[in-house]
Each structure stands twice: as C-alpha cells, then as structure tokens.
C-alpha cells in the first residue's frame, strides 16, 4: 500500500500544513469533467520527488517556493478544485480554487547521506500522501511536501491524483513552477473537451485486458488489496542492459520488461502472468503540453509460459501490444471502480519524461524518484530517467511475499549487481 506519513516516525518530521491557491478567482460554476480514461485512473496517485542540492536550495524560503505556484494555478486552476459527484454518481471537479495542500518538514540527514542509499524507495517518506475521501469535497488532489535537509538541501515531493493527468502532466506543471520561480512569464494551453478524448478506429470490440473492475470503494479512493505491497528501486545504465542482454533490439524498455517479466514469472511458478500492461507516452505526442491522461495503455498477451520462454520471444510479443485506450474509455461507467496499474503486472515507461528540466537557479535536481500509489496485486514496474542520459531508475512494487524472491532472480540474471538486503 505504500508508506503513509506519520508524525515523528523516521528522520523526516515536523509537519506543518497550509494551503496554496491561485491569484485570480475562477468564475463561479466552472467545472472540469473527467473523461472515461481519467476515471479509470481514479484509484491511482502519482508520486514524484525532486531533490535539490544544498548549493542550489540553501536560500529558498517557504514563501519563495509557494509564490511561483500562484501563477501556475492561474493558468491551470481546475487542479486546485475539489471532487463532487453528479446525480448519476459520476465524479467531476468543481473549480472552487480550494487549493493544494503544502506540507513543510525537516530531515535530520544531509542530501548526500540521503542519496547514498542505493534503493531510492526511501524517497517515499518525502511525499505526504492522503487518498481522496472519505470526504471527497474536502480532499486536495495535489499534495506538495517541502523537506529541508540538515545541510540546506531541499526535497519537493508531489502526490498527484491520477484522475487529473499522467506523469507527463505532472512534469509539465512542475516545470512551469520552475520557470515561474526563475521569473519567466508562463502560459499553459487550455485543453478543450475534444483534445482530451481521442478516437481509435481499431477498436475490435473485445474487452480491454489492462483494466479490472474492483469492489466498490465508495468515496474513499484507495485500491483494495489482498496483500501488503512493497517497493524497491534500483539503478541501471542503458549500456549495461544492452551488453548483458544483446540482440534483443534497441528498445531498452522492452528488454527490461522482458527480463523482469521472466524473473517474476519464475517466482510465481504455476500462476505466472501471461498478460501484462504496458504504459508508454503517446508517440503522436498530443501537443501542446497540458494536464490530461494521454499515455498509451496497451496490453500484451502471450500463449506460452514466460518462465520457460527465451528473452527474444518475449520481447517480440511486446512489440505486438495493442492500444486499449478507447476500449477503456467505453467500458468505464459513472459509478464502477476500476484499477489499471496492477490489474495485471504493469510496466510504465517514463524514461523520456523531462523531470530533470525542472531547474532551480539553473541547476537540475540531484535526483528524481517516481512511483505510483495504489497499485493492484498484479504489481508494477516504473522506469524513470536517471541523472545522466544513459541512466535509468526502475522502481518495482510487488506483493511483499514475492519481493525477496524476485530480487534473487534479478540478481541471478545479472540485472541487480548489488543485492540490497
């Protein structure tokens, strides 16, 4: 389920909550209607942590971090709204300028000490996360935690309700913040209803496999789960992957999927997963950048046992993934609850997302951690960019029982060079 913030537990403490809104009032009665694809994501939350070094962030005060948020929210004011339901039960966002929750905290360690830990999932404690509900009308959709390290460095952790948009949207908003911080005049395109819904003429009529209906959760938007989900994270380089697993094509992400899928299949033995979900950015890149769910969600189904198959076979079948977005859009209704991440084993490709463009005083963050909250029992692997172009960070979330065995398998095949015990 992920670690929930608790006062006083661990080195991060001293939470002070406040709210940040926009500078201009939104017209009364404005609403934002989520599409079917948006609603499919409602039980998921994106968490991203940006860590800045002491030299960069030493002089940043709380006010200097809060102030650039105002012009950003002026441009995209609906993300500061609150959820309501229509009479039909379909959720929508009331644009009442309620704001985002801003959390200040302190960490007893320095940035260097914090970044020394190779398993970056420790960054989960730098994101203040609360799910939507039980009072939907009073639940912020975005939480921003500002953690001051003892050396003066800063971590900015965002918890972002996936119903609003995908990780590219989050990066877009945060980059706008960084540009507003630098004093630039920012502008974000207002997306009309039309630009958020897309037509896919290849709809075959079969039910989408990447989405699963779950038991009704009511107004508390938490993914129901049978097991405690655990996260671990490791770094890898493109060169390394290509040298260890040669002749599997050029797409590092697909190679990674293949390797990890195989490891997990070996661990799960009898019930090895034959269907996975692959989430990647849309190559037709809906420009200009805006806040919406635009990732391509496709499903891969194989007829053979993944544990036994060769890597080439697996990678080849990944290439035949089918885009299921329009099917998802159709199947989602007003009241049912669904999950996408973790409905099956899910692989998310964020390696091309411009997280490191969020420059403060000209410097990129020292580290960016990205994960999803509310992953179902199928588990998920999120691949995000590293500090340098060649590097990737893979964050794996699986049921707690499987995780040690999966780590062993990954060690055996050479994916993780240092096993963190």
């Amino acid at each position, binding site marked *: 389920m992920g670690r929930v913030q608790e006062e006083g537990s661990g080195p991060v403490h001293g939470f*002070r909550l406040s709210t940040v*809104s926009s*500078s201009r009032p939104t017209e*009364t009665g404005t609403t934002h209607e989520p599409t079917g694809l948006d609603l499919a994501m409602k039980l998921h939350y994106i968490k991203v942590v940006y860590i800045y070094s002491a030299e960069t962030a030493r002089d940043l005060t709380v006010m200097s971090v809060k102030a650039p948020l105002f012009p950003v929210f002026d441009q995209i004011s609906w993300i500061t709204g609150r959820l309501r339901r229509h009479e039909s039960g379909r959720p929508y966002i009331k644009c*009442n*300028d*309620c*704001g985002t929750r801003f959390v200040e905290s302190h960490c007893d360690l320095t940035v260097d000490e914090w970044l020394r830990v190779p398993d970056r999932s420790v960054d989960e404690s730098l994101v203040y996360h609360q799910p939507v509900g039980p009072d939907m009308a*009073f639940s912020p959709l975005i939480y921003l935690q500002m953690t001051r390290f003892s050396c003066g460095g800063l971590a900015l952790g965002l918890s972002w309700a996936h119903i609003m948009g995908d990780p590219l949207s989050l990066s877009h908003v945060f980059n706008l913040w960084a540009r507003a911080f630098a004093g630039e005049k920012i502008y974000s395109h207002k997306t009309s209803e039309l630009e958020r819904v897309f037509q896919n003429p290849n709809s075959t009529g079969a039910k989408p496999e990447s989405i699963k209906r779950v038991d009704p959760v009511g107004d508390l938007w938490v993914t129901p789960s049978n097991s405690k989900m655990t996260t671990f994270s490791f770094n890898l380089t493109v060169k390394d992957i290509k040298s260890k697993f040669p002749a599997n094509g050029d797409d590092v992400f697909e190679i990674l999927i293949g390797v990890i899928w195989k490891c997990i299949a070996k661990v799960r033995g009898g019930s090895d997963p034959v269907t996975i979900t692959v989430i990647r950015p849309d190559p037709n890149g809906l420009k200009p950048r805006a806040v919406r769910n635009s990732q391509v969600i496709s499903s891969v189904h194989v007829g053979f046992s993944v544990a036994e198959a060769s890597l080439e076979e697996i990678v080849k079948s990944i290439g035949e993934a089918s885009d299921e977005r329009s099917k998802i859009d159709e199947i989602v209704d007003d009241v049912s609850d669904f999950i996408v991440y973790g409905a099956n084993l899910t692989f998310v490709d964020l390696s091309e997302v411009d997280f490191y463009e969020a420059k403060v005083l000209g410097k990129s963050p020292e580290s960016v951690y990205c994960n999803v909250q509310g992953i179902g029992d199928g588990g998920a692997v999120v691949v995000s960019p590293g500090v340098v172009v060649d590097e990737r960070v893979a964050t794996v979330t699986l049921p707690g029982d499987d995780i040690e065995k999966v780590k062993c398998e990954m060690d055996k095949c050479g994916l993780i060079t240092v096993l963190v015990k």
Partner: protein
Amino acid sequence: MPDQAPMPEFSSSVKLKYVKLGYQYLVNHFLSFLLIPIMAIVAVELLRMGPEEILNVWNSLEFDLVQVLCSSFFVIFISTVYFMSKPRTIYLVDYSCYKPPVTCRVPFATFMEHSRLILKDKPKSVEFQMRILERSGLGEETCLPPAIHYIPPTPTMDAARSEAQMVIFTAMDDLFEKTGLKPKDVDILIVNCSLFSPTPSLSAMVINKYKLRSNIKSFNLSGMGCSAGLISVDLARDLLQVHPNSNAIIVSTEIITPNYYQGNERAMLLPNCLFRMGAAAILMSNRRSDRWRAKYKLSHLVRTHRGADDKSFFCVYEQEDREGHVGINLSKDLMAIAGEALKANITTIGPLVLPASEQLLFLLSLIGRKIFNPKLKPYIPDFKLAFEHFCIHAGGRAVIDELQKNLQLSGEHVEASRMTLHRFGNTSSSSLWYELSYIEAKGRMRRGDRVWQIAFGSGFKCNSAVWKCNRTIKTPKDGPWSDCIDRYPVFIPEVVKL
C-alpha cells in the same frame, strides 16, 4: 379605469417632488429671499431721491478724523480677532491603502476546508461558519496574513510583528512616495491598532524604521475598536490646532494574526469569518502651503460614546471561552445597539450639516410628536441633501443594510461600502479609507463634494467625520482598486452557494 389609475399616482408623486424642491429652495436660501425685497426698496428709494439729494445727505454727515480712525481701527480689530480665533483649516493631503499580495488570498472553499480540519470535532460550529460566510457579503479575493494559512494557525508574536511590519511599512512607503514627504519632516504620528499592542509600541516601530525625529509627537491608540480611525483623526485635528505649521501621519490598521479565535464558541467564531488584512496611512496638515494639493478639508468630526449604558458596553466583549481560548463575543443585540448609537450621533451632527429646510421639518415633526400626537412617525432628515458620498464602515453586511434602511440611502450611496466589504472584507478601522479610495477610483469625487464617514466600534461608539473635497480627483493609476475597479460594482447575491 385601470390605465388611468397609475397616472394620477405618478403625476401626484411628480407634483410632490416639485413641492419638496420648492420648499427646500425657499427655506435654504431664506436670507437671500429676504434680501431681495430690501434691495428693491432701497433701489426704488434711491432712484426717487435723485443724485443731488443723495449728495446733500452725504454732506450732512459730519465726519471727524478721530471718528473715522476709531471706527476703522475698531473694524480692523474685530476682523483680526475673528481670523485669529477661527479654528485652523485641517487638510487631508493624501492617503494610501495597503493592498495585500495575492499569496495571502483566501477563497471561500479554502476557508471552509481549513475550518473543517481545525474544528473536526465540532461539525455544528463548522456549519455555522459556513452559513455566516455564505451570507457575509465577502468575495473570493479577501486576504488573511500568512500565519493564519496554516492548519492549525500559528499565531506567534513574531508572526504578528511581521504582519504589522508588512502592512504598515508598505502603506507608509506608498504614502511617502505619493506626497513627496520626507520622514524627517513628520511632526505628529498616530498609530491605531485595536488588538495588537506590543512593547515597544507600533508607533515606536514606525519611528525606528523610518528614523523619524526625536521630538516627534507620537501616539499609539489601542483597544478602541473599529472606530479608532476617526478617533485618530480627531486627535490629529486637536493637535494640529495647537501646533502651527505642522503635519500629522495617521496609521490605521488591525493586525489579524494574534486574534484568530482558536476555540469553537459560535458567537466568537464570527469575527474569524469577517476580519481581513488591511491598513491605511493618512497625511494631514494645517499648513497653508498644502491647501493647493490637499484632497480634502475636514469639516466636522462628531464622536458619540454609549459606554454609559451597560448593554452597549458589553455588546462587543473580548473574553475567554470555557476552554480558555480568547475571542471577541458579539452579542445578538449588536444591530439594535448600533442603530441607537447612530441615532445619538445623528442628533449631534444633523444640525451641523443639514440644510435649514430639513432642520425645520425635523423641528416641526418633533414639536408635532411631543405636543400633538406622540404616535406620529418621527421625521428622518434626508441626509442625501447634506452629502454627496457616504462611507459606512464595512463591518458586515447587516451593518450596511441597517444603515441603508435607517438613512434611506440608495444602492449607489452604499456601493462603496458594499464593494469594499466584498473585495477586502472587514479591515476594521482602515475600511473607511478603502471606501473613499473606491469612490475616487470610480472618478466620482468632484471639488466641493461632501463625504460622510461613519464608523462603529466596541464600547459602543459611533463616530462621524465630514470631509469636503478640495479639488476634483482624477482616477488614480495606482491604489488598492487599480487592477479590479473595472470589475466593480458586482452583484452580491443574498446567499452564495458554497
């Protein structure tokens, strides 16, 4: 016939209007009317007498040199005494209102959400606050200081001081820039802030920041409520009568940070919903050289204190609740008491400002009620004849509604008060200056216009100031209304659905 029935009503009301106008013109210019027949008689007499007779009358008057000298000396002496004993004209050179930064904005939804989180065990209190906010007449752009944005609020003394510095110094910097006054030239400084009174005082804080002179006459008024702004003006006026060739700076503000009520008694939660950040800095002067650039002249200032009556004294009372949280308890009789205080104030100011026609009518109606029929409705003088503009303290929607009803004012007369309440909330003693600024921003202030500022405050006090506009004021390019005046006036619904 149905069509004809409205016509007689309309024509009779038009006739009545002309009768009223005629009556007012007659009574107000009574002396002039008296003079006309006298002048006519004298002119007729002179014409009848002819030039030689006039010369004979002139020569028959024997003028002695001593007599001439004595009478002219007497005339000069009387006029000198008159000019010396006349009170100095007090000018309002200029003023400046604080405009809070957008980072302090508190939309309704945010206020309610914070309220729910802070008072999570008292849903009835939250419900109460929501109903107050819906009917308050406030808008979505009012501002609270940074310390109050926290859940729960963190009202430390440091935070209160920094709010005071932020609001007061910004307003004063703006005033110095507008008027070109140098800090070393300030003779009198009066700061009024009711609920925050640290040591050293806020006036000492201002003197320290701007390095004012060591022989400055500084005063710090605290605890005097929302009407303290006009009390400061009264004090400045008295001081400027005594000290020739001087100027005075008045700073009116209310510091919200330390006074945010943290308990859950309903009567004490009301101020949290209405009070917002604001400040005003005013430059007053008695120098002759300022009369060209001054915006207003102070005509009258009337203070009425109802503290002798127990009910009035206790109606706005700061006290601890059962849990020990300090807050301001507003009694349910507040509106009635305000009405009485206003009546008392009007009784004093009426004769000073009302034209003779209204005073006569009022006198006749008073005699009528006392002698003939006590059940006769009391005549409420038409103050619209005495003033062009009204600035009613934006204490809350109920106060403005009550005064509009009592004084029979139109929507346009109370527009400045309502719009100030909407845009800035209840900024306590500085609200009168935001309202005046609104009227100027709308370009309605002409030379010779008379303005009536009415303020209510704890105690219970009702203070009035009457200003006369000294020069037509061009729409200011800066000021608290500069970026939003085009959106005003807005329609404020009776209940805003949250």
